[in-house]
């Protein structure tokens, strides 16, 4: 086993899970909602990209754009169903959590009904082959995954820092009531957040489908891993999620080399439980009760 290869695999997987984790993290901190329908968004985006590849073109840009757009639409749908009707109702956090779970159950079954359980494969948008960087060999899809997710992450972070809408989102993260008082539209901002995070999940879906197949329940494992990363990094912190994604990627690579692939989930969970016992709000989580 080549340790460089495993390391590269882990980093590329971590960058993909990091996309989901940052989505979950941003949604929690700005909307106050735990979005467990992120896995559903992930799966729907995979099917959207597959449909585009079947019917329109197998060009890489078309496939990626289709996945990202379907993801944004699915995110908007989740927001319309779980956030808009509930955000000013009593017991909102629990009710929205259950609503997103219901959406993910409904969506998974609907996809199973529409597309049958047979798995689908996306075209290789980065081509087949590999390049040598010093002692390491990197295949195109891994390099592509790392580069693409890095580009989207940088774009999103820049947009959150520099744009008017990003300012509104950050205001909503700090204090939703205060933001509403100074004229930030909670509904429109929330829909923007849901669409952006949905687009991130859509990109993650297209990138991961270069290695794995698309199936109606393909979103569960990425959702769980994304959640693990978001939890370990601290809900509400983008930087924390990035650090956690890299750390968990290293844990995964190290376990796979030393113990074997079947122990990966277990060591990951022991790692995150250890992190949470030391820091209950994650590596860089928001201060206790800050969102109340």
């Amino acid at each position: 086993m080549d340790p460089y290869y495993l390391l590269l695999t882990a980093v590329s997987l971590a960058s993909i899970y990091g996309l989901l984790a940052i989505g979950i993290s941003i949604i929690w901190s700005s909307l106050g909602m735990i979005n467990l329908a992120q896995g559903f968004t992930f799966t729907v985006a995979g099917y959207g990209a597959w449909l585009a590849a079947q019917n329109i073109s197998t060009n890489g840009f078309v496939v990626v754009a289709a996945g990202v757009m379907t993801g944004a639409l699915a995110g908007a749908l989740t927001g319309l169903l779980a956030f808009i009707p509930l955000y000013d109702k009593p017991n909102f956090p629990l009710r929205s959590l259950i609503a997103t779970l219901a959406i993910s159950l409904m969506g998974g079954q609907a996809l199973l009904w529409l597309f049958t359980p047979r798995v689908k494969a996306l075209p290789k948008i980065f081509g087949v082959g590999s390049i040598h960087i010093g002692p390491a060999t990197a295949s195109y899809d891994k390099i592509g995954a790392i580069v693409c997710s890095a580009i989207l992450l940088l774009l999103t972070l820049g947009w959150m820092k520099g744009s008017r809408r990003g300012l509104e989102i950050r205001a909503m993260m700090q204090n939703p009531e205060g933001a509403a008082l100074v004229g930030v539209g909670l509904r429109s901002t929330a829909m923007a957040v849901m669409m952006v995070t949905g687009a991130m999940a859509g990109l993650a879906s297209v990138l991961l489908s270069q290695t794995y197949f698309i199936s109606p329940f393909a979103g569960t494992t990425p959702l769980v891993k994304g959640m693990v990363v978001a939890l370990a990094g601290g809900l509400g912190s983008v930087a924390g999620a990035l650090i956690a994604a890299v750390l968990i990627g290293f844990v995964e690579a190290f376990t796979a080399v030393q113990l074997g692939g079947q122990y990966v989930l277990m060591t990951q969970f022991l790692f995150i439980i250890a992190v949470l016992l030391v820091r209950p709000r994650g590596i860089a989580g928001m201060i206790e009760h800050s969102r109340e």
Partner: protein
Amino acid sequence: MAAQSDSQEPTAPAVPLAVGARRWLPVLRGHGGASWRRWRYPFTRRTPLLIETDFNPVTLNAERRILNPAPILWVIGLAALAIAPPQIGNNSFVLSATSFAMYAAINVIWMLTIGTAGIFSLASLATVGVGAYGSSYLSVYFGFPWWAMWLTGPLFGLVFGVIIAIPAIRLEGFYYALLTVGITELCRAFVTQDQTLGSANGLLGADSFVPSSMSDRGGLVLGYYLALLLLLGALVLYRVVNGQRLGRLLRAAPEKHEAFAEALGIDYRTTRIQVFLISSAALGGVGAFYATLLHGATPSLFTMDQLLLLLAMVVVGGIGTAEGAVVGTLIVVLFDKVFIGLGPIRLILIAGIMLGTVLFLRGGLFGIPAQYLAWRGKRRSERRGRHSSKGGEVMPEDAIEITDKQAIFVRRFDARLRAELKKLITEDLIKEHRATFGQRRSDALERVLTYFRSVAVTDKYAILAVKPFAEYRIVALSGRRGVPPRAVDDQVFTSEHDALHGVFLKRVQDLMDS
């Protein structure tokens, strides 16, 4: 003679009911002395039914009302469950009923964790799975019989509970919920990869409590009744934990009031963990029962879909009540098993019900009464804001809250009487009052004066002779002993007749203003 009296039975006079009278509450007859008789559970002071005795203010009869009919409904429902499924259903129906009873038991025990202890753990089915896998493992590899599996199941549940309780000490709410989802997924990944646990097929071949000599049908019915006993045991456990010391301590420390409870000396953290461990052990026991019923354990126990179905059951019924857990389970199992021909659509339907419940109901089906009352209260106060009074008459929405219905009629009579008297007040009438002291008065004036004289003493006008035959003033009586009357205004009258007329004018003014 009897026939005649039957035919001439006087029908009850059509008396209109006072607004807000509750016709629909069943009233038990009985002597007033019966109010002190109670059925009690042996050796305790607890009563199965809360009965309140009141005396009807009109008929003066003793009336006994059952304040909480829940125990009666529980007995009827459980009796129906005990009799109906084996009698009316075929084998698959009995199997569905068995899985209903088992899921209901799981949900009732889970309710202790998420309702009573307030720990939002989604690892309930994982605990069941650990109990099932552990006891199956002992049975398959060490030849444990079914009763030993039942004894070891809770131990596995308890050990697993201790392991997943460690993060629960530090983590709050949704961090813990997400972590338990992850733990469930971890368990699934572990059992599907481990060869000794049977990989994806599950660990089968465990001992069963059904004797091999028994027929298929007999085994199914036996399984059903044992599952029903399990549900009963779960309900008893819920009652014992939630209704006794542990539950009361935790009810004193609800979310966001923990600091206050701690100041009272309630160690809510330890209590929560205790309840969590009790429910984990019980869930492990359910897992052992599952293993003996289905001859082993399968990875389907750990799938996200099963967890979602379980959550749907709890959410539809309403989190925090045992009846919600049972009825929600009934509804979801009905959809899941009875409409099995629909394929994936039935799960979409279940998710739709779950979504609808969460969007429109605050506390599931059993939260509807409270939500309805809150809604009605809101509408009522809105209506009150629009028109607060109607000539002093009691509004229907107020009438519900007045126990003595006679007061409502008194105010209605008073309002109508005043409306009539207002028509009699004219300029001539006031002049007549000034001119006819000590003489015979007209019918209209006598009516008005009779009404004025009949008002309550409190705030009744009187005249005070400051200097007899020279200076009089109008005062209002306090109506309380020892409290002197208060002066109404600075007006001074020189004769008694002027002062009396002044009082009359004031009363007329009050009447016209009312």
